[in-house]
């Protein structure tokens, strides 16, 4: 019935790449091939563009419920669609937190009508306070697969062990750790090192991350449960994950764009737009994150999109909340900083942005491709050559806290299709 043709692009997915048109009908890809016959159906021009499975972000803060001044599920989903994402995993540090099936159900209901699939995570512990297990089974029954106390680390090894053991009874469940030892990171606001000492800002040492990664690798071995490391940022943590994978342990990892593009030197302006947990680290760490992405040690690029109101960031560095926007710049940063210099192929970058995170999130049946007949038409069309400058004032997010304002980037999303609906056309959100 309602046909739509994506015309003239280069299709890139896990199965390879080819020049092809893509015909979509009723939200499903029905035909992929060269010079498909047109007709009356509307067409989206993809000439010179890459047609890829929609991107999947394992790590976004949509702030609803509780902080709708910073972001809502609706505005966050619009930002996601503009960034090429067709699915995002909503983190549970809302007010109230996603530690209860009723709150999860409410988030899923709000997300169902937006311009991006909203996948809910669930807390590991009640109130994210690291003590008692949240009702993981009840949330799993609603489709939750990623369990995390993100923003907080599960600091108690015994609690983490029990969560991992329990998760083994929940098919597809992944326990995702914000790896920063609370004792070592306490009171810190930026990476601990030469810059923090120079600026007089209390630091969070890389060792805070490393000790938790090392510990949880061992707990993955002890329990056999799947562990995912959120926003890996230190060189040593990358090595630890690499070693764990070599041992055959069920671990995965993500890295955020700011951790492969920015360093702690950015904090010398004292502008809290550069404050994030885990913090921006050194050149050495940035290089290690890139190497980890290049060799597949780090499975996914995830934004850790963390909107904050201008008022919240108009506080002194040590008083401002951590976090930065990511959804509308992630793809372009990956293309500009990883693909253009030749560290990753375009297909590798898309793997880290789409099909590998789709696998981790347990949504590979509908996201992450391949672009093939019978698959849901969750697609993004990327113009890989266009250059643009990040303008914080023009972001679709309700918030403005991007650390990339003024940065010139290469590559941008042209169209995004969610279940066949063109939610972004020629770089403009349609609703």
């Amino acid at each position: 019935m309602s046909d739509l043709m994506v015309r003239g692009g280069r299709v890139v997915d896990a199965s390879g790449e080819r020049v092809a048109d893509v015909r979509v009908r009723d939200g499903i890809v029905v035909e992929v091939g060269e010079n498909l016959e047109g007709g009356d159906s509307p067409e989206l021009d993809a000439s010179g563009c890459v047609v890829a499975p929609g991107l999947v972000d394992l790590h976004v803060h949509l702030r609803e419920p509780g902080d709708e001044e910073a972001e809502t599920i609706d505005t966050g989903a619009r930002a996601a669609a503009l960034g090429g994402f067709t699915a995002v995993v909503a983190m549970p540090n809302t007010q109230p937190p996603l530690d209860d099936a009723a709150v999860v159900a409410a988030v899923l209901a709000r997300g169902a009508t937006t311009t991006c699939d909203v996948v809910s995570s669930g807390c590991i512990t009640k109130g994210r306070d690291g003590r008692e297990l949240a009702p993981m089974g009840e949330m799993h029954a609603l489709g939750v697969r990623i369990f995390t106390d993100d923003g907080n680390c599960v600091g108690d090894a015994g609690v983490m062990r029990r969560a991992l053991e329990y998760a083994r009874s929940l098919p597809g469940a992944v326990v995702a750790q914000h790896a920063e030892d609370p004792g070592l990171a306490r009171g810190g606001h930026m990476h601990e090192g030469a810059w923090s000492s120079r600026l007089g800002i209390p630091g969070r040492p890389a060792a805070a991350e490393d000790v938790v990664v090392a510990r949880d690798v061992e707990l993955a071995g002890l329990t056999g449960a799947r562990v995912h490391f959120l926003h890996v940022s230190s060189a040593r943590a990358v090595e630890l994950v690499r070693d764990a994978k070599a041992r055959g342990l069920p671990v995965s990892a993500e890295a955020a764009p700011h951790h492969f593009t920015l360093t702690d030197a950015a904090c010398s302006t004292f502008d809290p737009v550069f404050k994030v947990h885990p913090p921006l680290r050194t050149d050495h760490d940035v290089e290690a994150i890139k190497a980890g992405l290049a060799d597949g040690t780090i499975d996914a690029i995830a934004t850790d999109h963390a909107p904050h109101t201008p008022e919240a960031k108009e506080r002194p560095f040590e008083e401002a909340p951590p976090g930065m926007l990511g959804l509308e710049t992630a793809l372009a940063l990956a293309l500009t900083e990883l693909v253009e210099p030749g560290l990753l192929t375009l297909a590798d970058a898309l793997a880290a942005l789409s099909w590998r995170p789709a696998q981790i999130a347990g949504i590979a049946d509908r996201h992450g491709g391949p672009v093939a007949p019978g698959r849901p038409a969750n697609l993004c069309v990327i113009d890989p050559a266009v250059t643009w400058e990040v303008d914080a004032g023009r972001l679709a997010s309700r918030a403005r806290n991007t650390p990339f304002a003024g940065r010139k980037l290469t590559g941008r999303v042209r169209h995004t299709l969610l279940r066949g609906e063109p939610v972004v056309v020629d770089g403009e959100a349609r609703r």
Partner: protein
Amino acid sequence: MKHLLSVDDLGRDGLEEMLALAETFVEVTRRDIPKVPALRGKTVLSLFYEDSTRTRLSFETAAKRLSADTMTFTVGSSSVKKGESLRDTVQTIEAMGVDAMVVRHSSAGAPHRVASWTEASVVNAGDGRHEHPTQALLDLLTLRSHRGPSFGGLHVGIIGDVRHSRVAHSDVKAFAALGADVTLVGPPTLMPESLEGWPVRVAYDFDEVLPDLDVVYLLRIQFERQSEALFPSLREYTARYALTASRAKRLKADALVMAPGPINRGVEIAAEVADGPASVITEQVTNGVAVRMAVLWSLLGSGGSLV
């Protein structure tokens, strides 16, 4: 110079110019009527987010001796507790019309942020662990009055909680800029986590460096550091790092004892040493007013005659 946020804003030449200017204000403060009309019509605001009676009084005294009008905004009597952002506060005050904001804040870099939001000149009166440039200036002025303008060959020991000390941070830069050798003395838990780029040596044994020091600069120890497991007890700290009477006897004959105050008598310094002949702690306070007059005049003065 529009703002004074860090000792780095001055550099060696700037420090020396400011000290020369401060020396003329020392002369003013000794007059029967220690007041000049240099900043008449200017308004200086103290924006203090942290308790500090002496620094605030010192700045306000300096402003009044220059005939500026002064206003005070302290956190207890403000709308900050209602959640107003720093930027909103600054812009509200700016709308009333001020020429300089003297900012004290518990968070590093707060004065830098204030400077980005206001047309007024901003003076850092202490920000978190970061810097306290006017304290460094008054320390330099005090040392200069005893040892002359060149610090080459002088050995300055800064003893105690360097990690949490904005004074130490500014003093290291300032003393080193004028040619002194600086040694930081204290347990590793009270040293900065990284000293990369700091022009200093570090000693963990006070007794070893003590006889070589020309200046012993004692930082105040804050009692709550003990509960943060940074040292085992005040008794142990005092035994290892305090300037006791017996240690004072081993100092060079002409060594000077300095402290940023307030001091804990009997903790980092013995009472008889604080009041003894080597101590210049009271001079430091006097010089603080002259230095702050020099800073305010440099930032706000029209360049006309001082007196």
